[in-house]
């Protein structure tokens, strides 16, 4: 392990410890993020000033056309090192910030959940490391079910 790798590792560990050790401080501000009604408001809590970069190293699995907006399966994974958090933001939802996962070094950056979508929307994923945020997005069409089944 060279010096730079060591610094990176320590930085990641530090960030992880900081995130996990003081959940109350993070939570207070994060709860505001979940209440935000605009994409900008939600992002302020997710990005907290870090540089953002588009990345093709994020595997973001979500249907192009959702069977039903009430249950849209999502999987996010990446091989980017030192991931501390993954956030899912749905631009057109009443509260765009949907979920935020805070990761320790003991888990892979690979999570799945199911989210609600009120209407067709861009869905953004933000992968956070200590120094930078990586992002990608997909458009998801939501059709309201009629004579389905």
């Amino acid at each position, binding site marked *: 392990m060279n010096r730079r790798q060591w610094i990176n590792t320590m930085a990641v560990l530090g960030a992880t410890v900081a995130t*996990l050790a003081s*959940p109350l401080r993070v*939570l207070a501000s*994060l*709860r505001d993020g*979940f209440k935000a009604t605009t994409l900008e408001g939600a992002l302020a809590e997710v990005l907290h000033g870090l540089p953002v970069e588009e990345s093709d190293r994020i595997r973001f699995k979500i249907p192009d056309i959702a069977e039903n907006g*009430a*249950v*849209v*399966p999502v999987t996010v994974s990446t091989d980017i090192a030192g991931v501390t958090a993954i956030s899912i933001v*749905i631009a057109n*939802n*009443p*509260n765009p*910030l*949907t*979920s*935020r*996962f*805070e*990761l*320790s*070094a*003991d*888990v*892979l950056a*690979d*999570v*799945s*959940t*199911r*989210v*609600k*979508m009120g209407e067709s929307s861009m869905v953004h994923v933000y992968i956070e490391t200590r120094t930078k945020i990586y992002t990608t997005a997909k458009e998801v069409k939501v059709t309201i079910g009629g004579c389905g089944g």
Partner: protein
Amino acid sequence: MAAKVKMRGKIKAGIAEVKTLMPHPMETGTRRDADGALIPAHHIETVTCYKNGKQVIVAHWGPAVSKNPFFSFKVKDSVPGDVIKVSWVDNRGERSSGELVLK
């Protein structure tokens, strides 16, 4: 009392894939009942996951996570016998949890 978290998991090449299902209404607070009255928000806010007592991942959720939430994650360096615990707390302070011994 809130229903227990349903869990399953399997280890592949040292990585445990843990899947959870949490019976919960996940009310957004914007829906109305048959009489037109607003149904108050009722949703899980935080899910904390542990391996052998050590916190490994935390999920923070708003009301836009689907009803009866599904959440899966992958834990490194897992061996049979490791204990995975998942516990949640919602906006009313209600709690529930589930535990799984990896095989």
